[in-house]
């Protein structure tokens, strides 16, 4: 546990000093939001469901950008071998990396969600706080599945292209559920009504946390 915490702090410190993943994730996400706002045309209002779709497009496209970096960094400098001979088990490395990705996603969404409300907020009854449960659950599932697959794609020749190709099909059901849950949150419905939608989101997170913990060691040892 303390080893996972140590690795987590190490990655966050690198991130704070270089600011490559988090900053580019946030910037790209905001860019996607602006592009979608332009594409929507001026002066038109979106229904809550469509607005939720817009938010999720920005979130997953920006998240996949930062996800690849966290693992590719270890590969480039051969640090992965150092991590493997260190006392930390591969499962611990997975947990630490997934938490780093989760943190980065939450940080970038802390900026993206306000930007989303500025651009698309008119006519939506639900506020930013109503989105928090579904955002957190999707972030957890996304970072668990994403960490596993970014380790896979980092070992191939076409790292950057391959990660979204591998990851997006897996998270498609997650996005479908998240759009529904966020749509009803934006329409101002109560949390209890959204619970049947949030449960499968949590299940996805648990499934991929377990699958990642078990499968990640096999992937990193192929280095």
């Amino acid at each position: 546990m303390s080893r996972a915490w140590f690795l987590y702090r190490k990655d966050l410190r690198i991130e704070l000093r270089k600011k490559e993943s988090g900053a580019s994730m946030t910037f790209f996400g905001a860019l996607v939001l602006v592009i979608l706002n332009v594409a929507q045309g001026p002066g038109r209002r979106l229904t809550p469901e469509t607005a939720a779709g817009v938010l999720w497009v920005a979130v997953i496209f920006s998240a996949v950008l930062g996800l690849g970096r966290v693992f590719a960094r270890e590969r480039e400098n051969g640090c992965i071998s150092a991590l493997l001979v260190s006392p930390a088990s591969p499962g611990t490395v997975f947990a630490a990396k997934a938490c780093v990705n989760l943190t980065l996603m939450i940080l970038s969404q802390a900026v993206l969600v306000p930007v989303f409300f500025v651009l698309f907020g008119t006519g939506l009854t639900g506020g930013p706080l109503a989105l928090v449960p579904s955002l957190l659950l999707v972030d957890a599932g996304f970072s668990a599945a994403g960490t596993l697959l970014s380790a896979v794609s980092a070992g191939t020749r076409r790292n950057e292209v391959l990660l979204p190709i591998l990851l997006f099909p897996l998270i498609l059901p997650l996005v479908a559920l998240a759009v529904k849950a966020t749509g009803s949150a934006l329409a101002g419905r109560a949390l209890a009504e959204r619970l049947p939608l949030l449960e499968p989101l949590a299940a996805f997170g648990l499934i991929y946390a377990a699958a990642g913990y078990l499968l990640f060691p096999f992937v990193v040892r192929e280095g």
Partner: protein
Amino acid sequence: MTSRRVPLLPLLSSLLLPAAVAMVFFYAPTERTMGVVQKIFYFHLSLAAVAFLSFFVACVAGVLYLVRRERRWDAWGAAGVEVGVVFTTLVLVTGSLWGRPIWNTWWTWDPRLTTSLILWFIYTACLILRSAVENETRRATYAAVMAIAGFVDVPVVFLSARLFRSIHPTVIRSDSVGLEPAMIVTLVVCMAAMLVFWAALVRLRYGLHLQEAVVGDLERRLGES
């Protein structure tokens, strides 16, 4: 591997498949409301069943590869994914062909359609992944991980797809089968034919993958000497 025994499965399927086609068109009665369009159902259902079976095979082969580290499990997994993707493509195509005249749309977001489409995407990504890795053991490990990660997605896919309204017919329920006896016989023959055909294809691809690996070994040894 290079045995010269009779190709039993391909021979059997070359008999069974034409028989199944003949039964579909000449034995099974024509459905009253849907007419001749309904006949695609026999192939659609059989294809869907074996497509799902091949993804299951790929997942099991993936687990066995990670545990045993034997080349043949990777070959089974690769064969399963390849044949599964081809069959899922056919499921989607036959479904669309049926849906256009009956539902008046090529596509709808129904649980079963959504699940098939997402599975198609996941396992096609698996094929792309295989082509992107040169090293044999690394490719095998990655492909195994992806096949397992894709298969554990199925429950969530189905849960999420339940949100969409379903207009897909449920022909086979737990208590009854909504078909004429002659139709049931045709369906059973069709499924058996498809299963044999599927097994033949998977078996052939498996052998081919093993031979490719052996050729790779020989090439490497030639390069060393």
